[in-house]
């Protein structure tokens, strides 16, 4: 009977054997060549990967903006009102010919009739929305996968350091850098286990309710002025909605497991979400009131004038709102000290009790992606988004050459800054998690409803008054406001330096083993 199931096993063809042995040999060869490199120089590889990705990101923006300019100019020539004149799929026209792009790339000095270079041909598809969407989509999808994997690894390293141990050290060589991918492979290969009494459909569906919203949140999350998959005018609300929908997965997962601990986890998540979501939203409304827009792109753009223009330092209320938001965002990601839904010591593993393997991994992907999104929101709403602390007009003297543009792109703004800030927030989240005990449910509710909620209400009201006063154009007030802003900025700066100082101190005094106190394990003679 089995011959029908797997026919090719019946008549093995020589080519199969050849192909398979070739693949194995290739893999072995790559492994043999790569392993020493990978294990010996992983630091440099990682560093160069970072540099390379920075370069790619920068070049991508630069080239795309050239093509954009070209399209706009051409569209103006043609007289089309719609800047997106060449359409999404562009069925009617083939867009700008490569030669035009080449001309633009070469600048004004280009000679007419010169044959377009390879780059022009490569860039030709970029002018179509669909192409760009595909590129951006690939980038987001890749990022969405990279972030959880490496944040998990990083978290384990950070946790190890905090706990005076090393964390993963073996897999992949250098500091166990391949630990997370290896874990991922293990999880994928694990038995797909569904308890008999579980509601199997919902049990299977629940992880997707976690992963899809957290992936969708990236759609509206800008990494830079031009690094937005979709520029949504209600991006903030959209991302908050996505974070809110994730709760559904926890409740469903908890319910579908048909395990009392899981149900407790789900219920706790629902309770907690009811409590934290309002202060979180209201804390985010504070910068929204300052700026007057829900578009994250716009909110990021108004903070381009250096450190003191960042919204957290605009007025005292926003500064406090920043802290409030950070606390609420911990609850939103189910991170300690708000990790009640999966509280290990109380609920075994909460809603995750019955999950294992790939589904469990999906939950974790969602959680860590949400952590990044939450950190990204904090960055954009309070800490200047993708802008560097240096005011952007300082770069006016650099000129407009392609290199100057590139330098500006790296110095003054760009996804690098955004990601760095997000990483900072991620670190804060990790730090808090490995330091603090867990809060009890009634304390969570108390903190969110009776402390944070009134606080954010006061903040919102105060900001409204502040903005109102600022818009009245009173000169005295402007002076006061700017002084307050400077003071806040300096306080923030002090916090930042303090953070760096603590980190530096810790790094300098780092101690892996206790030293001479380790006693020879053999009994004495």
């Amino acid at each position, binding site marked *: 009977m089995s011959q029908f199931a797997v026919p090719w096993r019946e008549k093995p063809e020589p080519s199969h054997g050849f192909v398979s042995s070739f693949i194995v040999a290739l893999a072995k060869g790559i492994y043999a060549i790569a392993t020493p490199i990978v294990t010996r120089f992983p630091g440099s590889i990682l560093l160069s990967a970072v540099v390379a990705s920075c370069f790619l990101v920068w070049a991508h923006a630069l080239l795309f903006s050239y093509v954009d300019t070209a399209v706009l100019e051409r569209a103006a020539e043609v007289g089309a009102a719609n800047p997106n004149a060449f359409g999404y799929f562009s069925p009617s026209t083939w867009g700008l010919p490569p030669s035009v792009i080449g001309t633009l790339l070469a600048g004004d000095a280009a000679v007419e009739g010169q044959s377009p270079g390879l780059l022009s041909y490569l860039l030709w598809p970029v002018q179509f929305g669909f192409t760009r969407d595909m590129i951006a989509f690939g980038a987001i999808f890749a990022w969405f996968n990279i972030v959880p994997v490496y944040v998990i690894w990083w978290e384990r390293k950070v946790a190890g350091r905090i706990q005076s141990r090393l964390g993963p050290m073996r897999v992949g060589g250098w500091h166990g850098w391949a630990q997370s991918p290896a874990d991922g492979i293990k999880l994928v290969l694990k038995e797909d286990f569904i308890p008999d009494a579980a509601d199997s459909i919902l049990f299977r569906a629940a992880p997707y309710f976690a992963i899809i919203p957290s992936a969708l949140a990236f759609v509206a999350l800008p990494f830079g002025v031009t690094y937005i998959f979709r520029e949504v005018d209600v991006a903030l609300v959209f991302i908050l909605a996505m974070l809110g929908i994730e709760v559904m997965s926890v409740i469903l997962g908890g319910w579908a497991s048909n395990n009392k601990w899981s149900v407790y986890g789900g219920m706790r998540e629902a309770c907690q979400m009811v409590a934290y979501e309002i202060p979180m939203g209201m804390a985010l409304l504070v910068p929204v009131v300052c700026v007057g827009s829900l578009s994250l792109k716009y909110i990021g753009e108004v903070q381009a004038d250096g450190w003191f223009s960042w919204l957290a330092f605009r007025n005292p209320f926003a500064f406090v709102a920043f802290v409030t938001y950070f606390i609420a965002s911990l609850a939103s990601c189910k991170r300690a000290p708000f990790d009640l839904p999966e509280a290990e010591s109380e609920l075994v593993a909460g809603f995750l009790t019955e999950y294992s393997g790939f589904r469990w991994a999906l939950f974790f992907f969602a959680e860590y992606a949400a952590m990044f999104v939450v950190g990204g929101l904090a960055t954009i709403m309070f800490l200047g988004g993708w802008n560097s602390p240096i005011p952007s007009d300082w770069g006016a003297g650099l000129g407009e050459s392609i290199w100057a543009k590139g330098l500006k792109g790296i110095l003054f703004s760009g996804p690098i800054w955004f990601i760095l800030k997000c990483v900072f927030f991620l670190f804060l989240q990790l730090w808090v998690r490995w330091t603090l005990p867990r809060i009890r449910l009634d*304390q969570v509710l108390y903190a969110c409803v009776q402390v944070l909620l009134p606080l954010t209400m006061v903040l919102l009201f105060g900001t409204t008054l502040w903005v109102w006063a600022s818009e009245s154009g009173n000169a005295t007030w402007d002076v006061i406001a700017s002084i307050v802003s400077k003071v806040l900025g300096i306080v923030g700066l002090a916090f930042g330096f303090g953070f760096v100082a603590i980190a530096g101190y810790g790094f300098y005094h780092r101690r892996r083993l206790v030293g001479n106190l380790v006693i020879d394990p*053999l009994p004495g003679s």
Partner: protein
Amino acid sequence: MAETTFESTPDLLLDHDRVEQGDLQTEELLVNMGPQHPSTHGVLRIVLRTDGEMVLEAEPHIGYLHRCAEKIGESVQPYQYIPYTDRMDYIAGMNNNQAFAIAIERLCGVEVPERAKRIRVIMAELNRIASHLVALGTYGLDMGAFTPFTWCFREREMILDLFEAACGARLTYSYITVGGVHDDLPDGWVERCEEFLDFFEPKIVDYNNLLSFNHIFVKRTATVGVITAEDALAFGLTGAALRATGVRWDLRKVTPYDGYEDYDFDIPIGQDGGIDGVPRGVVTGDCWSRYYVRILEMTQSVRIMRQALKRLEEGPIEAKKVKGIKLPADEVYVEIENPRGQLGFYVQGDGSAIPARVKARGPSFCNLAITSHTCRDILLADVPAIIGSLDVVLGEVDR
């Protein structure tokens, strides 16, 4: 009309009869906490009757680790039984050995040499610190703080290294035997031990900073699981759990053994918050008091050890002729201060070398009894807090 249909009801959350009979309210739930649960410290099973997050009733079920430890004691000679005692409370093996050894010594009238007494005290206090470190670390885990656990275990590993150097074992020592200790300390051990004490003492401040005075931790444990002194005495609580209620009772002071009367140390007790660095909101006899009494006891243990190390003199480490000793036809009951409370051994001899009856009074077993009394109308998250603060070892509960 269609009726309510139960389609494939493998595990109804509530069984319908109990609802009908009014035994369970509609919103109530019976939950099994354990025997496989991260925060029950072994194989304790607690049946909770909950209303949402509220625990209305908690009933501990024990016996998953029963090994007939007492019965074995009636079929082997006392010195053969020593290795069984440290399987009872495997976190504090030294103290268990000591208790049984003292019981037999009292029964047979064996005089223990001075050096052996000092070593016993050093080992017992060292093990007390190790045991408390486990209690602190796991209590942190119960509260959701992961880091204290590894920090405590870091220091505990050093103690275990010391034990290993002395007796070759890291968990089940069987070091203290009837009539003394079975091996002398290796060279340089005393210096290493002092080095360790110097290293360890400042670490207590670290624990305090990391966990004891952490605001969240205090909120989680203060006023939770308050046990009054009357209740504690009525339920036969001993050890840190008793002292946290404000009763200054420690057998090392009350009925000194192995030369404890020679040492100068205090007995810390629990007190209300607001003074002496105790955070506000703390009430005598709550979880935080129990936790903090252990911290203070570690300091006292260090103090005792320093004195003992200083007075350690050369001499014999074991009384003569203890192996195969005949037990007189008499009975003895000895209690000593275990890290968890009062560990008592009742031994009855009948003239042979094998005891006629061995009975242990386990502190964890007795302390655990108050669980159902304390875990009433509390939140679910308080259950691990209370159980953890009682610091029970299931190996000793079930024996």
